């Protein structure tokens, strides 16, 4: 079987299961993809660190048997920068919600991208603040309902991938939980990039976002991802009208450039010579 790996070897299932997330929440599917990618790359789990922020998505680090840090809201990338600078040999994975990464953590996000520090940043994009009950987030699409947008959101939303490319990330991609197999591959590529990689994953939040917007149950929301998305390759042949309301998935940007920790090695070398 293609997926016959022992995911349980990477999970703290004895102490921390069942997962706290709601039935059908996509976060667990992403965690599965991350584990399969790490396993596929043959990484030693003791040399992987996962840093997460606060939110439903932030719980991810609790369940996985890497070196984990569950940090504060919006600051996961700041903690991860410390981890990576202190222990550059660690493969560093950062898990954030869309609010976590793009509202309160937006500043950390653009600067981590600009610095091109070697880590993979995951944005678990459920289009809303899940944990705190459904406030509008910078990724809530226009017209959608949230607890702070009862008449429909009138703010344009961020395209996190375009933002990441513009800020300087050297690998940028988007996947969905429905396309979990492609997601495994995307994550493996992102981890292999020596620099700041961003993987935005569209994930259903049936309890909050789904209910506010009457999107149906978990199964329906998961299936909807298939209809709502097109690959980069398909999108290339589509008009802007056809692409309206579609989410594009795939690798958008893969352009390695000098990485921060390596650049600092040079600084140290120079300083020692003086």
């Amino acid at each position, binding site marked *: *079987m*293609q*997926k*016959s790996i*022992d*995911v*349980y070897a990477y*999970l703290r*299932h*004895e102490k921390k*299961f*069942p*997962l706290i*997330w*709601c*039935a*059908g*929440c*996509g*976060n*667990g*599917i992403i965690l*599965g*993809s991350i584990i*399969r990618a790490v396993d596929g790359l043959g990484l030693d789990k003791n040399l992987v660190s996962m840093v997460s922020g606060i939110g439903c998505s932030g719980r991810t680090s609790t369940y996985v048997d890497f070196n984990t840090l569950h940090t504060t809201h919006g600051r996961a990338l700041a903690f991860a920068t410390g981890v990576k600078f202190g222990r550059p040999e660690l493969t560093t994975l950062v898990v954030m919600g869309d609010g976590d990464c793009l509202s309160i953590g937006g500043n950390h996000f653009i600067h981590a991208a600009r610095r091109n520090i070697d880590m993979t940043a995951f944005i678990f994009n459920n289009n809303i603040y899940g944990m705190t009950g459904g406030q509008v987030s910078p990724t809530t699409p226009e017209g959608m309902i949230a607890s702070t947008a009862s008449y429909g959101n009138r703010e344009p939303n961020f395209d996190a991938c375009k933002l990441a490319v513009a800020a300087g990330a050297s690998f940028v991609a988007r996947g969905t*939980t*429905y*396309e*979990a*197999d*492609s997601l*495994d*591959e*995307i994550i493996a590529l992102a981890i292999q990039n020596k620099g700041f990689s961003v993987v935005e994953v569209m994930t259903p939040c049936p309890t909050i976002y789904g209910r506010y917007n009457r999107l149906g*149950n*978990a*199964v329906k929301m*998961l*299936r909807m991802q*298939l209809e709502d998305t097109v*690959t*980069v*390759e*398909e999108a290339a042949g589509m008009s802007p009208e056809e692409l309206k309301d579609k989410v594009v*998935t*795939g*690798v958008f940007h893969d352009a390695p450039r000098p990485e921060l920790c390596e650049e600092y090695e040079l600084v140290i070398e120079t300083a020692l010579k003086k």
Partner: protein
Amino acid sequence: MLSKKTKVKYTEKKKKSKYPMVSFQIFDKWCKRCGICVDLCIHNVFMVDEDGYPRAVKPVECNVCGFCITRCPDFALRILERGEKNAQG
């Protein structure tokens, strides 16, 4: 590499066999009865029992595509190939 959507792979024809090649482990204490595995399996391997938990009623139909396992958000589902030992849970 990622140009093909998963559904293309997913609808491939499967080989017929009289005996199940696999057995299923469903960890009820982790399963949240979301129904994703039941709904997504195109070979209708699962049925829902009276308490809402999935049960593999037609394991012989399974072509081991792995779709249900990778989409189970709670790691509550495991497919054991013939000869594989039971896992923790």
